[in-house]
């Protein structure tokens, strides 16, 4: 046993020596996002120091530091340390100049974010820094200037830099979530920020709206609406409120945009049988993708755009299948359970999330594209449906009836940190996470 440990230790040491230069130069040896047993990193976010001495700056610096802590905590990577444990006096600038790192390491903080806020002529200046307290090293240091209303934007941009420094991947802080809500009495399309902030209504009709889908540049959204009395497909350019309607006989439902193309897959039933077609963004049919008697619905693209997953009843029960668009080959993916629907392909391409029904209740499952798993992520808490991945592959948004009415929840892709995304009147369902919006 002892030998084994020595060997193991030796091996780890060798590996870390080999890996060190590469990982270190890339600068993201902090959070390994592929590790399911991720330990949350304790991070200290003391109140930002107000530079200008008025009550407005004072309040804003407190609010901004709270917002920064919440924004970072949303990722599920961090444990925000209690400010009451901090070894700094109130109003002390110990957290800004000459950081005493020992006072942070000895309360358990491995990372530290400090900030200073200055308000002048209705403009806000924020200096934010992320430190590694053990290495006593500055990881990210940025100074931002903007209008006071931009503070949320500033904080999100800094969080994006921080996450990039820690994980080597861009975060989700500029993404949005589209969803369906009955707040107005009828199911309508809404969009909110990634953290549930600022929900806004997109469609203004008195008829049911369903199944939103984002184009991969985040500019277009497709959905089904009964505005003309039957399920038609609406393709809409969000900024300019123009677009197309696909109004063929029968169903026009479940749109899914092809990655990096102005084209989408959707289910149309004009032939009498719901089948999946590939359409241009202007609504013209490019080709038919599925050929089977019986329902084929809910296409989901692989991130490389070479395959689609979809739901079909061809074996008698709704199951998820994968079609390789190059070879035309179709393989059944799910074999467990009698009702598996709503596939959503992970951004890394290795897994699919879907909802599967067992004993009359839906739950979210993950399955490898090789069929490995499935792993159940939600359990014993009402109906959990419509999973959709965050573009960094770290989080999954879904709807759940765990508190009675259907609401939108977020969890990590390992099923941990399940929490409600937003409080709104009525019921919310069918969340769809947008791609990153940087280039929009």
């Amino acid at each position, binding site marked *: 046993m002892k030998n084994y440990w020595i060997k193991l230790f030796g091996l780890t040491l060798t590996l870390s020596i080999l890996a060190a230069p590469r990982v270190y130069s890339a600068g993201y040896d902090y959070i390994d996002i592929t590790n399911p047993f991720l330990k949350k990193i304790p991070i200290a976010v003391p109140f930002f120091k107000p530079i200008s001495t008025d009550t407005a700056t004072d309040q804003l610096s407190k609010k901004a530091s709270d917002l920064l802590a919440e924004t970072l905590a949303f990722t599920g990577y961090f444990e925000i340390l209690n400010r*009451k444990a901090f070894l700094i006096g109130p109003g002390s600038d110990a957290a800004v100049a000459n950081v005493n790192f020992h006072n942070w390491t000895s309360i*358990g903080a491995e990372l530290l974010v400090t900030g200073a806020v200055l308000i002048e002529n209705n403009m806000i200046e924020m200096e934010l820094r992320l430190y590694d307290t053990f290495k006593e090293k500055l990881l990210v240091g940025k100074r931002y200037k903007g209008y006071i209303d931009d503070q949320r934007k500033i904080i999100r941009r800094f969080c994006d830099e921080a996450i990039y420094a820690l994980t080597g991947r861009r975060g989700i802080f500029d993404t949005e979530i589209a969803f369906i809500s009955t707040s107005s009495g009828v199911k309508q399309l809404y969009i909110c920020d990634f953290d549930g902030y600022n929900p806004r209504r997109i469609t203004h009709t008195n008829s049911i709206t369903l199944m939103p889908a984002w184009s991969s540049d985040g500019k277009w959204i497709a959905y089904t609406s009964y505005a003309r009395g039957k399920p038609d497909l609406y393709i809409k350019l969000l900024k300019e409120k123009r677009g197309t309607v696909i109004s063929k006989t029968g169903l026009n439902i479940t749109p899914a945009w092809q990655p990096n193309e102005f084209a989408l897959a959707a289910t149309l039933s004009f032939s009498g049988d719901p089948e999946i077609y590939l359409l241009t963004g202007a609504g013209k049919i490019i080709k038919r993708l599925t050929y089977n008697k019986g329902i084929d619905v809910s296409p989901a693209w692989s991130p490389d755009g070479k395959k689609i997953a979809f739901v079909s009843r061809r074996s008698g029960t709704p199951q998820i299948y994968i079609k390789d668009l190059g070879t035309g080959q179709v393989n059944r993916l799910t074999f467990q359970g009698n009702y598996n629907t709503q596939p959503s392909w992970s951004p890394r391409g290795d897994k699919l999330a879907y909802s599967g029904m067992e004993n009359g209740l839906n739950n979210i499952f993950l399955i490898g594209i090789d069929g490995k798993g499935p792993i159940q992520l939600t359990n014993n808490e009402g109906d959990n449906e419509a999973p959709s991945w965050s573009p960094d592959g770290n989080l999954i948004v879904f709807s759940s009836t765990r508190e009675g009415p259907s609401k939108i929840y977020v969890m990590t892709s390992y099923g941990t940190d399940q929490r409600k995304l937003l409080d709104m009147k009525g019921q919310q369902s069918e969340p769809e996470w947008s791609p990153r919006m940087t280039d929009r």
Partner: protein
Amino acid sequence: MALETNSDRLMSDINVTPFVDVMLVLLIIFMVTAPMMMQGVDVTLPQTTSEPLIAKKENLIITINTKNQIFINDYQIGLDNLQEKLKNILEGRENREVYLRADQDISYGFVVRVMAEIKAAGVDKLGMVTEPIHKKKNAKQ
């Protein structure tokens, strides 16, 4: 199952359950000597021969100086707030170990009062920091 069928067999293992209980209740106190480069609040430590303190970055050190002022690292705190502060700190820490550096001229009564607060905060290991005995004294002995 095996015990029922073979009841006359001797149980050779030490039952550690009561031992664990004792460990949980007691505050473990041990002594360490501070290395020369120990920084922070200036105090004169009593001299003993004991294990040297391993300098770790996450060490939490409570100091009492000659004016009966209490410090956590270099952060000054009153005796009344010490317990709550330590509780909050221990929430974020993995171990519950604290080092105490009291000036050698502080009254025994005050040190014990501070120790009681430390224990009540949930600290289970307390290291008493001392200074190594100077060589001259060693020579006399």
